[in-house]
């Protein structure tokens, strides 16, 4: 007879997401394993399996003797309903074991809209949501990823956070757990010990007190000797760091269905709105030799016919020429498509684009982010109008006829003039095509998209107000009324999601009950339009007596104690303040290669120098 789960698999879309069994999956003998980790990615299989970080940590843990790390993803709505209807708890892919039977449950959190999925996955697993309700060592929940640089909204649910890059600290954590389990420690004892590992933050060891106006008053340690500042971990030497060239190859199509190789970490650019640009510093590079070796191993092991080399700003990789000169012939010989996203519009990049021969002329994408040079200087996005137009000119002459332009609305100091500046830039692009477009028959398509600016922690804009949703929509409409060419397609993001993102991004512990309430009311898969339900969240805020405006349109004072002040990502608060002043003065900060701006992240390095 066919088991219940197998029957349900045939009633849902894309069942291969739930079965495991892919090439490269790690199987172990449970009898030989002492610690079992369920690595939970709070989004669907297609998204999670495209995440390089998750693949690295999966390999890191499975390399450990006596440890078996298995994967689990957020089920799609149809599967969730089937599971609830039949009382089937969430399971891991490798051994198809219920998550609640695991020693440790690790979450990788890279996007605020995944917050409801974290609690929903615990709920679907039958694991108590609150840390205080989980007694004993079993089901130890820990979390890492960019979002945990402000971990407070999750303080009630997560036993401890692992801050920063996980290659080394994850091993230290799991090893300690192994010992704790062997020696039958209490949860309290384990948490006290794990808190001593640099990069680990145990939220239950601190109490957050608030002022009558709602701002954070103090963070009070509840346990003697615990640190007051938690510095993220980094890997200094990426060449010798573990990188899994034997990666899992999904048996069903995922979002980034190809090999993926990181060129370097950190960014020299310093766009003032960008969280990754600041929180991933200092800059550390991998050598072209190591990358070439890993690329070929990756291709040979996986059988992929496409590989991406990625980073925050690929043109800034010093070894790009050397690497691509070796990699291009290899790819040509083996009929591998090499894709190089995040290129800037410089000369070498243009030559490279020609050589890549991504025969499909898919189009050019620019993210000027702001419509006027003034505002681009404020946000330190050093992409000039001349650069954009020059690149468009070359592209149009070469037969391209598709341009995507991405902007943000609601950036600090933005006026209507800046909004209309977007329309002007768009018209310059159209005019240019009329002058030099060679593929006139196909017609020009300019795709313009605006996003609603979300201030993020650990950026110079971490104190800024978010404009109201009404004001954002007014600016969208203003822009729309000035984009009347048939060649232009304009999309603007709905403000509801970005507003919620802003609340969580700079949230504090009072959001815990809000998330819990929303999830119990059915919030899940918020990053997906078909599931995001604004009303659920509004109700949850009301019931919990939390005003979302406090975290969005209020703005934070520079003298205010911020919920994420105890997290040290390397860049100093003083530097962020300085950058904020420069923003308001309309002064750009040249990229790090033209001179160190003194962000402070290089203090984290002992073995190597900052590669900026």
């Amino acid at each position: 007879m066919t088991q219940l789960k197998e029957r349900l698999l045939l009633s849902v879309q894309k069942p291969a997401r739930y079965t495991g069994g892919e090439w490269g999956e790690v199987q172990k003998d449970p009898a030989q394993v002492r610690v079992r980790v369920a690595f939970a990615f709070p989004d669907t299989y297609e998204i999670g399996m495209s995440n390089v970080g998750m693949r690295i940590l999966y390999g890191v843990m499975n390399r450990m003797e006596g440890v078996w790390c298995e994967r689990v993803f957020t089920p799609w709505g149809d599967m969730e309903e089937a599971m609830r209807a039949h009382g089937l708890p969430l399971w891991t892919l490798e051994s198809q074991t219920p998550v609640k039977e695991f020693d440790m449950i690790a979450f990788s959190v890279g996007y605020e809209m995944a917050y409801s999925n974290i609690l929903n996955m615990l709920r679907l697993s039958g694991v108590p949501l609150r840390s205080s309700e989980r007694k004993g060592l079993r089901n130890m929940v820990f979390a890492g990823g960019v979002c945990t640089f402000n971990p407070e909204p999750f303080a009630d649910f997560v036993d401890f956070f692992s801050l920063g890059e996980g290659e080394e600290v994850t091993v230290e954590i799991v090893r300690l757990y192994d010992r704790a389990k062997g020696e039958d420690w209490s949860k309290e004892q384990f948490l006290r010990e794990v808190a001593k590992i640099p990069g680990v933050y145990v939220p239950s060891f601190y109490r957050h007190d608030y002022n009558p106006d709602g701002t954070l008053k103090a963070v009070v340690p509840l346990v003697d000797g615990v640190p007051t500042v938690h510095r993220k971990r980094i890997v200094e030497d990426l060449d010798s760091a573990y990188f899994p060239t034997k990666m899992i190859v999904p048996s069903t199509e995922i979002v980034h269905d190809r090999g993926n190789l990181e060129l370097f970490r950190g960014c020299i650019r310093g766009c003032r709105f960008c969280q990754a640009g600041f929180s991933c510093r200092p800059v550390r590079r991998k050598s072209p030799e190591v990358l070439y070796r890993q690329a070929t191993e990756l291709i040979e092991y996986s059988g992929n016919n496409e590989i991406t080399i990625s980073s925050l700003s690929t043109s800034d990789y010093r070894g790009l020429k050397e690497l691509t000169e070796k990699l291009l012939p290899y790819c040509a010989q083996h009929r591998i498509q090499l894709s190089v996203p995040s290129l800037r519009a410089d000369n070498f990049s243009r030559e490279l684009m020609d050589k890549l021969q991504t025969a499909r002329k898919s189009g050019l994408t620019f993210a000027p982010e702001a419509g006027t040079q003034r505002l681009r200087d404020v946000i330190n996005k050093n992409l000039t109008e001349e650069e954009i137009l020059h690149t468009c000119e070359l592209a149009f002459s070469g037969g391209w006829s598709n341009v995507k332009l991405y902007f943000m609305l609601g950036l600090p100091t933005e006026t209507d003039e800046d909004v209309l500046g977007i329309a002007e830039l768009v018209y310059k692009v159209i005019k240019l095509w009329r002058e030099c477009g060679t593929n006139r028959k196909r017609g020009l398509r300019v795709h313009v998209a605006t996003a609603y600016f979300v201030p993020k922690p650990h950026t110079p804009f971490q104190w800024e107000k978010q404009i109201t949703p009404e004001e954002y929509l007014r600016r969208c409409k203003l822009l729309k009324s000035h984009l009347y060419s048939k060649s232009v397609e304009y999309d603007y993001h709905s403000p509801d999601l970005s507003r919620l993102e802003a609340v969580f991004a700079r949230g504090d512990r009072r959001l815990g009950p809000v998330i819990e309430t929303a999830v119990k009311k059915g919030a899940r898969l918020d990053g997906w339009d078909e599931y995001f339900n604004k009303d659920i969240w509004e109700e949850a805020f009301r019931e919990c007596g939390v005003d979302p405006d406090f975290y969005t349109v209020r703005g934070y004072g520079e003298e205010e104690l911020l919920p994420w002040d105890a997290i040290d990502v390397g860049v100093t608060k003083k530097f962020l303040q300085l950058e904020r002043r420069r923003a308001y003065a309309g002064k750009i900060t040249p990229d790090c290669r033209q001179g160190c701006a003194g962000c402070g992240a290089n203090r984290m390095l002992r073995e190597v120098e900052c590669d900026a």
Partner: protein
Amino acid sequence: MLRALFEKTGRAVYISHLDLMRLFQRAFQRAGLPLTHGQGFNPRPFVSIALPMSLGMESRCELLEFQLDGVEVPGEEICRRLNDALVEGVRVLEVYEGERKLKYLSLLRCRLTLEYDRGIPEGAEDQIDALFRRERLMVEKKGKNGTVEQDILPMLKQWKLERLNPQELALEALICCQNPALNPMQLEAAIRVYLPGLSPDFTRCCRLEIYDSEQTVFR
């Protein structure tokens, strides 16, 4: 054209037709067996699966056609190297030079296992047998242009019912699989429509063997 006879069982039954082609393309690459590439902007390695199969079906008789690009490797070695590069549940049984064109592939022997959680209803075999002896048996079929009714009996050549245990009834059938093709699950659909009391709680389906129109095994 080279041909691989393979089976698809276990967890692999959840891999869709398109995904399975991609999976084979990568398996060939991993096995160091270069495939010929198609034409077009992004030339992809070329593989073709003879009879696309619905999700969830098991098979012991799938055919994959391909050509190696510039190398000659004995069939047995291709078979071994592919199996070393394939996932659990997809196993190549034999690799050989295809002699007869795929268009001569005509009949399929398959087995539906009808699962009755509360036991097989009394007289199920006789009722199903009688159903398939009717003159016509119209069953809805979802196609690209909406739903159409078709008589499935001309495509059902032989059948046999066997109780495997008190809860599982096996229906083994010989059906047309090309020009026209009958999806074996249509046999189950007919039971649901005309004998609602015999609607199974779940049905699994397995392809057992393929033949030409003379009922000679097709390779």
